[in-house]
């Protein structure tokens, strides 16, 4: 055993983990502690080791396993990440098995899917791992045949010697390959020769998902398992006083009733768990509970007052985010000034698979967890401290997620199940009902925006201000948030668009919120882009200019945004007049996740109602791995963006969430889903942008701008009712 600081893995454990019995070629990544840089390493004969990340295992039988550290939640990482290795290793789909990692320390801290970051953070390194393996296998073949390496090539899991017509499968080469040194700088393939990357590829999880065979967290079964449903306080921030389980325990199947704590960052609440032999019995038992809560005055919280509170806060100067030029002077001296106020609602993630987790607290304080999660690494990193365990005591099985959208970045539902299993000493599957999911939060925070702009006499934007008033997500995770500084995550993108505006002063005003808040697909950009890009539309109309031309005038220098808008003009046929009764609107957004622009076309049905006809999306990626999947993600972003723009969202009264299920917090249905036309800009280069989120922020502003074009109604408050539009 070699101990290098905090991580120790011996070969026995390592081999048990990989279920290997004989020789195999194992290539992975080891992180140099000195520099933090990752290098590809041959782990085949590592008698002892540390920081082992075995991304490829090739066995003598020819079986090839690729490890995937990015959880699959519908965004396509089950295909796209292994494809990075498989491309360089010259494997065809179907020639390898993918194993999803469970936060094991040896795979590093990046086992997470979020921020549209999976592919771009893996692109170079995973290809390097695959290329190293390929070069070692080719070298092994050249040694076995005693021929020059240059005469050998790899294809479809075999190495060929063209001059002699010989070939060997990878499995036949591993014994020799495993003894070779790892090439320091393996030759990556020329993208022109790619078989998979950059081409639309079928996802290996699709057959599982059309046959009911895909295992989501909610599908896990463990011997001896019981089920649980938890009654939590309907009022946010309230406390459990007392409960009477006498009726609940009389329900057939109910085994016990115990309090259980939910921990969402620093928002901690105690609920009452009904544990039963079946989930149905647990639900019935829960209905029979009598629970007393101490509302602690939080029953006063309601949406009407809260919205007014945010409007009142808008009078505050706020903390300056970015200031360029002299906004105050330029605004006062403008030829004309425009001011507007924008509002957005709370919304739920409403993943189709409700939150759930199966946990088994075993004798000897070992813990096994099965969960649909976006963050295996966080579970392994954070639970030890909470439960007095070491990371090695925890085994996590990362299941397919039935939607994530940010909700599964939180650990609350995992911690709750672990707490319960620790108490009842049994494996337990704790499932949130849809009502729990809608009513307990976390939610996407609302952002309110106070906008100011001034135009010069030639109709150019000379002064611009976006002041954001919002509660913060981080207040739930940072014990004492420093409110003298801007929370950068709440002003995301507003000061970093490519528009050249000479005088700009953006600011942020903190608000508090009793309901838990969390990142929601495209995070704050999903609301800030609405205010920002609609207000630019207002300024364009004030200037008497075409909204796209108005934007292009602020993009004199070459930029990715300029490229996107130029392409959008072309693919949406922007310059061709629309028939009478139709309208179109445009918006773009550039933020941490990436960059996209959209044009929405609508038909006016009456003076105050419209129908959405078509959405054109241009996404700027640099490099694309699976175009059809990118297209699917854009279609998805459009549907989710429209839902957030036109459906109820979440409101509060008497300290509680007013909505409970899909009838009162609806999501878009097939009848409302417009045609989506996607164009991918992938001109190569090392600047790879994200896919999962960038399609979302432009949806609401492009739609609102289209509605203005069609009806003259300017929408400044989401959600908007397409059947009864009110400016």
């Amino acid at each position, binding site marked *: 055993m070699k101990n290098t600081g905090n991580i120790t893995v011996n070969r026995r454990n390592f081999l048990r983990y990989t279920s290997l019995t004989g020789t195999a070629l194992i290539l992975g990544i080891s992180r140099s502690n000195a520099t933090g840089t990752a290098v590809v390493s041959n782990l085949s004969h590592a008698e002892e080791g540390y920081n082992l990340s075995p991304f490829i295992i090739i066995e003598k039988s020819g079986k090839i396993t690729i490890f995937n550290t990015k959880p699959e939640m*519908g*965004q*396509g990482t089950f295909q796209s990440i292994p494809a990075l290795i498989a491309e360089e290793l010259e494997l065809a789909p179907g020639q390898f098995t993918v194993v999803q990692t469970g936060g094991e320390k040896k795979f590093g801290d990046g086992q997470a899917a979020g921020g549209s970051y999976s592919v771009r953070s893996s692109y170079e390194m995973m290809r390097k791992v695959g290329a190293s393996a390929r070069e070692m296998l080719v070298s092994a073949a050249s040694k076995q045949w005693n021929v020059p390496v240059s005469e050998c090539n790899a294809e479809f899991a075999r190495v060929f010697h063209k001059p002699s017509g010989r070939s060997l499968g990878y499995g036949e080469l591993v014994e020799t390959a495993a003894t070779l040194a790892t090439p320091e700088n393996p030759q990556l393939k020329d993208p022109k020769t790619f078989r998979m990357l950059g081409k639309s590829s*079928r*996802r290996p*999880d*699709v*057959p*599982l*998902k*059309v*046959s*009911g065979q895909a*295992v*989501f967290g*909610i*599908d896990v*079964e463990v011997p001896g398992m019981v*089920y649980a449903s938890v009654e939590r306080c309907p009022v946010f921030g309230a406390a459990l006083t007392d409960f009477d389980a006498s009726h609940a325990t009389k329900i*057939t*199947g109910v085994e016990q009733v115990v309090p259980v704590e939910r921990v969402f960052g620093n928002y901690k609440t105690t609920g009452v768990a009904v544990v039963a*032999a*079946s*989930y*149905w*019995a647990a639900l019935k038992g829960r209905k029979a509970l009598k629970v007393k809560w101490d509302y602690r005055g939080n029953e006063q919280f309601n949406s009407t007052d809260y919205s007014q509170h945010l409007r009142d806060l808008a009078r505050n100067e706020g903390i300056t985010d970015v200031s360029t030029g002299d906004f105050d002077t330029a605004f006062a001296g403008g030829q004309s000034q425009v001011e507007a106020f924008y509002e957005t609602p709370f919304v739920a993630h*409403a*993943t*189709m*698979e*409700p939150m759930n987790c199966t946990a088994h607290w075993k004798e000897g304080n070992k813990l096994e967890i099965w969960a649909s999660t976006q963050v295996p690494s966080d579970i392994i990193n954070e639970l030890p401290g909470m439960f007095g365990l070491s990371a090695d005591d925890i085994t996590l099985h990362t299941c*397919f*997620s*039935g*939607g*994530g*959208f940010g909700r599964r970045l939180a650990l609350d539902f995992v911690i709750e199940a672990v707490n319960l299993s620790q108490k009842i000493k049994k494996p337990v599957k704790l*499932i949130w*009902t*849809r009502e729990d999911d809608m009513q307990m939060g976390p939610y996407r925070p609302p952002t309110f925006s106070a906008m100011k702009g001034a135009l010069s006499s030639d109709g150019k934007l000379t002064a611009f201000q976006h002041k954001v008033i919002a509660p913060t997500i981080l207040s739930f995770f940072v014990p004492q948030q420093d409110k003298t500084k801007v929370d950068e995550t709440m002003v995301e993108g507003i000061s970093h668009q490519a528009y050249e505006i000479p005088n700009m002063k953006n600011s942020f005003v903190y608000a508090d919120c009793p309901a838990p808040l969390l990142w929601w697909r495209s995070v704050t950009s999903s609301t800030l882009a609405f205010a920002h890009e609609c207000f630019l539309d207002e300024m364009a109309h004030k200037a008497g200019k075409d909204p796209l031309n108005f934007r292009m005038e602020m993009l004199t220098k070459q930029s990715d945004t300029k490229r996107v808008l130029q392409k959008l003009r072309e693919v949406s046929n922007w310059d061709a007049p629309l028939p009478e009764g139709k309208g179109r609107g445009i918006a773009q957004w550039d933020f941490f996740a990436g960059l996209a622009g959209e044009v929405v076309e609508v038909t006016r049905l009456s003076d105050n109602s419209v129908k959405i006809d078509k959405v054109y999306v241009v996404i700027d990626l640099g490099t694309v791995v699976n175009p059809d*999947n990118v297209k*699917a*993600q854009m*279609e*998805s*972003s*459009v*549907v*989710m963006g429209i839902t957030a723009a036109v459906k109820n969202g979440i409101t509060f009264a008497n300290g509680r969430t007013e909505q409970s*299920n*899909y*009838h009162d917090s609806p*999501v*878009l*249905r*097939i*009848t409302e*889903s417009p*045609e*989506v036309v996607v164009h991918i800009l992938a001109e190569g280069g090392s600047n790879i942008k994200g896919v999962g989120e960038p399609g979302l922020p432009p949806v609401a502003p492009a739609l609102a701008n289209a509605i203005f074009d069609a009806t003259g109604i300017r929408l400044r408050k989401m959600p908007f009712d397409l059947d009864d539009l009110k400016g």
Partner: protein
Amino acid sequence: MASAEIIIQTDNMAKYALNINGNKVQLEAEPDTPMLWVIRDMVGLKGTKYGCGMALCGACTIHVNGQPVRSCSTTIDSIKKNDQITTIEGISENLDHIVQQAWIEEQVPQCGYCQSGQIMSAVALLKAIPNPTDDDIDTYMTGNICRCGTYNRIRKAIHRAAAMQKGK
């Protein structure tokens, strides 16, 4: 699919004999138990999903005598003696149902959680209307929610399946 008789015993309530995917299943359950939980947790077929519990989302769609029903709102007691129940696992043996094939061709699923229900609805649609228009599809499929927003691909896949059915 194996035709062996499955017998499951629990310690309470009424006895039921069900016919699921061509298999006879005997079990004991409380009469008000929704078929969703019977199918998932007693029979062990996990393809049928819980989404809302109120027949709002369609993730739990199964067929009873070929008709799509929401299993979350169908109690075991309402199932009649000779009712034939079909779940996603019962529509084909090797992914060879035309709707599954069309779903793969169009790469419909994203997270995939709602897709069992979508497919069960689509199978029933194509039986009722072999050559559906977009409006037919919208009307028939509107009870099935997809949070990932795969609706346009669902529409395309149904048209594709209709064409495959015709060509058979």
